């Protein structure tokens, strides 16, 4: 059975004083990063000093930071009870699994482990499992582990491996602060000095202190006059004998010094005359402990934060995790710095590799600072291979090609190549005049080939020449060749433009042979029939002719209509068949010219705020252009008629006619 966390037991309801400052600091560190700093965290204190409060506060704070965290709080008795019930029911494994999956396990009152060997073994197993999975375990007890009778040494060592910390009795100031805070919560007001008087009684158990406060509240409620400090002292009573004998308990555990004596023996330690002064040493010690803990363990916090940060950025942090697993690191700052430098190196390598080979972006090999060698090797290969060749434009798709009776042969050839690259028509050469759709088809085919995997090179002949020149300039021709030779398909637009470019032709010739030899697909387009190719070496031309040369017909009305319908549907949502039919029937020698007509109609319709139709298009395209069609200027918005062409235009006031004479409509009528 798991007890729900008491909503009142939070860090902000905890009064922090010298006695518990260190424990609270450690508890907060654990709540902020469970499993990374002090694991396990073992808090011990006499009853009534706030162990359970701290434990639940850790649970609340951790959950506030990460609501998905599974937090389980239970007392040792409940832990034992659940174990016995599970064993009796034959569900031992289920019991274990239940606790192994908890992110933050809070176990109260573990002093009851005394003489429970089987539970100790179970807790040992659980602690190991949780630690191994970076899950946090926090335990509380009324005494340090070493003093829990018959506790397994291995458990003591496990606890010592985390942080063992104690909460000592609150000092006077803390007691006053606790009384004030609780009185405020209870909305009880007391006269000056009353709470202070109670605090001087030396009740060092917070529960008893609150009991005393309750007594004060109850008596003040029935008393006519406000309580006086001396009355309060009497009322709570007997406190004077308590003295300040709260010594011998410190925030630190002296592993090498004699163990802290049991609570009952504590007063015996105090040399009588110096007793009041002991709190001075206690305060001193707790502050020193806090400083040391802060300084010494600061690196754990930093490493923990670094782990979270770099894991968040997708890097493996095994090196840092290994640091945390060590009890002490000679130079944690340096280890952290080294790790971060390695991460920076990886980031640099990844950026470079991604530029060379986009497929390497986000590659896991650049995420493990423990294995820089692998990353370097991948980068070396990427450098050798250079950036990928230019890819086909994804704007064009094979399935968007318009097939008509006239271009069926071409479209079928293209589809056949896409289906079986390098097998049939190799090379495929598409011949056709400008704006017949060669480039469209080339890129669409390129995309289809790229989908089969591997780098596909798709570029125009001038680009090919330009890259070659640049490679020569950088003395990197070999790398440049490598890029294209690794391509699974090579598509060159406007091959006729390599005319008279000897070096380009030479490179293309070699590349052609290499790729053909490797069974890769080659596709070319040319605006000039191959037979008429001038300035191209015969050996290259003959190779181009060796595959399939198909001629793209001028786009007929049917193609134009399909293209226009597609475009209209894209832009307006619907395609008016009459409108596309009309536009396609207009004389246009290329797809682009037909598209320009459509553009004109759409802009005019948009200006008038209407949906274009065939009649509108006809009126627009067939009526002779008149000045009347120009938008008439609205009355009152007269200007000189000189339109400044931009910032560079003359804006001299002398050259501007600022006041136009009032001529009304007359001038325009005459002008017509």
């Amino acid at each position, binding site marked *: 059975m798991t007890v729900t966390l008491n909503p009142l037991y939070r860090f902000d309801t905890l009064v922090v004083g010298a006695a518990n400052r260190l424990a609270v600091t450690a508890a907060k560190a654990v709540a902020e990063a469970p499993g990374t700093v002090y694991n396990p965290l073992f808090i011990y204190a006499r009853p009534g000093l706030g162990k359970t409060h701290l434990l639940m506060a850790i649970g609340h704070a951790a959950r506030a930071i990460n609501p998905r965290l599974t937090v389980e709080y239970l007392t040792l008795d409940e832990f034992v009870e659940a174990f016995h019930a599970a064993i009796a029911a034959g569900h031992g494994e289920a019991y274990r699994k239940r606790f192994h999956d908890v992110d933050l396990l809070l176990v109260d009152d573990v002093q009851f482990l005394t003489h429970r060997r089987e539970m100790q073994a179970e807790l040992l197993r659980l602690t190991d499992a949780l630690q191994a999975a970076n899950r946090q375990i926090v335990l509380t007890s009324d005494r340090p582990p070493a003093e829990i009778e018959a506790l397994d040494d291995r458990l003591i060592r496990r606890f010592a491996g985390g942080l063992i910390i104690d909460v000592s009795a609150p000092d006077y100031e803390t007691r006053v602060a606790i009384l004030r805070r609780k009185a405020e919560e209870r909305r009880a007001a007391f006269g000056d000095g009353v709470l202070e008087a109670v605090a001087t009684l030396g009740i060092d158990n917070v529960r008893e202190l609150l009991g005393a406060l309750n007594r004060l509240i109850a008596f003040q409620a029935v008393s006519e006059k406000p309580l006086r400090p001396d009355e309060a002292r009497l009322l709570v009573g007997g406190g004077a004998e308590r003295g300040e004998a709260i010594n011998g308990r410190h925030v630190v555990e002296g592993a090498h010094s004699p163990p802290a004596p049991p609570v009952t023996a504590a007063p015996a330690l105090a040399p009588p005359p110096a007793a009041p002064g002991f709190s001075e040493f206690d305060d001193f010690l707790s502050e020193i402990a806090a400083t040391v803990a802060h300084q010494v363990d600061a690196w754990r916090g930093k490493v923990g934060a670094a782990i979270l940060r770099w894991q968040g950025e997708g890097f493996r942090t095994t090196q840092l995790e290994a640091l945390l697993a060590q009890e*002490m690191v*000679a130079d944690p700052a*340096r280890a952290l710095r080294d790790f971060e430098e390695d991460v920076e190196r990886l980031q640099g390598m990844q950026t470079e590799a991604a530029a060379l080979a986009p497929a390497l972006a986000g590659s896991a090999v650049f995420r493990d600072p423990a294995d820089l060698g692998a990353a370097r090797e991948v980068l070396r290969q990427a450098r050798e291979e250079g950036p990928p060749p230019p890819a086909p434009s994804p704007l064009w798709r094979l399935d968007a090609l318009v097939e008509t009776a006239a271009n069926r042969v071409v479209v079928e050839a293209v589809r056949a190549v896409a289906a079986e690259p390098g097998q049939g028509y190799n090379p495929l050469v598409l011949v056709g005049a400008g704006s017949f759709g060669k480039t469209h088809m080339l890129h669409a085919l390129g995309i289809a080939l790229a989908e089969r995997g591997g780098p596909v090179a798709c570029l125009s002949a001038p680009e090919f020449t330009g890259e070659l020149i640049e490679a020569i300039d950088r003395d990197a021709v070999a790398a440049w060749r490598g890029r294209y030779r690794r391509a699974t398909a090579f598509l060159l637009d406007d091959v006729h433009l390599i005319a008279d470019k000897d070096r380009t032709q030479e490179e293309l010739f070699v590349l052609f042979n290499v790729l053909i030899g490797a069974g890769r697909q080659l596709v070319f387009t040319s605006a000039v029939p191959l037979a008429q190719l001038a300035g191209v070496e015969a050996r290259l031309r003959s190779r181009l002719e060796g595959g399939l040369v198909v001629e793209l017909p001028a786009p007929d009305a049917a193609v134009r209509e399909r293209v226009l319908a597609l475009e209209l549907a894209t832009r307006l949502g619907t395609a008016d068949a009459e409108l596309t039919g009309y536009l396609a029937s207009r004389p246009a020698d290329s797809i682009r010219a037909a598209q320009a007509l459509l553009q004109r109609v759409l802009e005019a319709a948009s200006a008038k705020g209407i949906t274009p139709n065939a009649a509108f298009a006809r009126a627009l395209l067939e009526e002779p252009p008149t000045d009347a069609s120009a938008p008439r200027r609205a009355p009152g918005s007269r200007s000189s008629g000189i339109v400044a062409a931009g910032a560079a235009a003359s804006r001299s006031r002398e050259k501007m006619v600022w006041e136009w004479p009032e001529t009304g409509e007359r001038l325009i009528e005459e002008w017509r």
Partner: protein
Amino acid sequence: MSLVNFTAREITCKLVYYGPGRSGKTTNLQYVHGRVPESRRGRMVSLATQTDRTLFFDFLPLELGTISGFTTKFQLYTVPGQSYYNATRKLVLQGSDGVVFVGDSQARRFDDNLQSLQNLQDNLLAQGVDIRQLPVVFQYNKQDLPSDLILSHEEMDDALNFRAVPSFGADALHGHGVFETLRGISELVLKRLAVGASVA
């Protein structure tokens, strides 16, 4: 001396109480000694002359137990204040992690304070330690004496504490300011732990 020994997991702080003769250095240590539970303190070694003046040095080891996995020990030393014991002062000063300069607030001891501070600086320098790099705090003792006999905390600060390090008024005989001073110097020294390897 190493402040932190990562291998042995030990923190050892050597704190030296420095100052002119009869300024109250030994009184500081005696007060601390009286307030530390027996289990935490070692034997206070005090070599005094017949007239009760410190002849060699006082030494008070404090076991603070295991803090964050480190066995933490403080060693408090005093130096003999009298000017003719400079060799001893140098010896005690060696390897110190922090210095408490205990000044005598009496106006008539003004020059002694300055001389002793100068001597501290010289002795540190002779060991290659720049006083600006070493944690130092000032304690102005005997502030309980009649105000016409002593310099105030501010006046003492003006006279000695030109680097504005932490300073504490004290009445070591009754314990006022003793632990505050010890805490002050300890914090300064322990904060150097963060420097990490440089103190390892």
